[in-house]
């Protein structure tokens, strides 16, 4: 059995984001899982953009992940998002999904929030009625 370039990853977030009162402009958004202490819509954006705050109890520095040099090169964190379908048959209205790691304005804290942005087609910010699953890992030095 090969152990070809084995890489250590540590899951720090896993959960499901849902819309308890249904989707719509500024409707309630909720996170159910582990690793996130707060979730909100992006300020000024009514659909399809969510800010998730990492739990301060996470390992590392106050729940943050070490940032790279600028937003481009953060090598230390990975995210995977899967949209849950809705309707019959259950399908997704989401066409694009993007993630950004927001660095705390407090010097030295690192990235302590995730920004998730979703669009439908034709391109327009949109919520997925079925919600979405999210897993976040940090890369662990060996």
């Amino acid at each position, binding site marked *: *059995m*090969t*152990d*070809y*370039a*084995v*890489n*250590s*990853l*540590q*899951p*720090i977030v*896993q959960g499901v984001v849902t819309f308890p009162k249904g989707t719509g402009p500024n409707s309630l958004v909720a996170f159910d899982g*582990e*690793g996130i202490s707060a979730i909100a819509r*992006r300020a000024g*954006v009514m659909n399809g*953009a969510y800010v998730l705050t990492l739990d301060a*109890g*996470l*390992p*590392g*520095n106050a729940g943050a992940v*070490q940032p790279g040099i600028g*937003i*481009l*090169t*953060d*090598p230390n964190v*990975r*995210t*995977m*998002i899967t949209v849950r379908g809705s309707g019959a048959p259950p399908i997704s209205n989401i*066409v*694009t*999904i*993007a*993630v*950004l790691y927001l660095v705390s304005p407090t010097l030295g804290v*690192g990235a302590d929030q995730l*920004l998730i*942005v979703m*669009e439908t*087609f*034709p*391109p327009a*910010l949109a919520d997925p009625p079925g919600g979405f699953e999210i897993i976040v*890992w*940090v*890369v*662990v*030095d060996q």
Partner: protein
Amino acid sequence: MTDYAAAPVQPIASALLTIDAAGNPQVTGRGFSAVTRSVPASLGDFLLTMDEGIGAADIGSGPDFTVGVIGPNGLDPACVRVGLTMRGGTTAPGVTTISARSVTITSTPGEGATQIRVTLRNTGNALTDPMGPGAPNADGSGLEIMLWNGCPTPDDAQAQLVGPLFQGAMQFP
């Protein structure tokens, strides 16, 4: 304790694919030793080579592989699992134009899979890079790539992967 449907997976690579100022793809992170544009070269079409790492002198593995092959030692293509996530672009609040992300496992007889081909298309169905040359653009700011071996033995699965969420293993320098 129960081990109901336990499914160990072995993390092989976690990388970030970006475009340098000259327009060439580059990969940072772990698990990939090289990235090129596929041939013929095109936007949004990349060939990533897995790092031979400590498996370089191992014995070929996986069903139907030649027994006794000495490195490079690829993965059984049927066991490769990949996650692709776009990083947001410059259009507020951080959207991406990339809608279709796909991966093809490149396998060599007797060696297994040592490369993956990743293609990205935008909402207009055009092959598109995950960012501009050396800088984010409206398409995005890079592509996160994760790759697992879905057929490890339990001993190969790292404790960090299957262990508790809040295992205190991460450190800042």
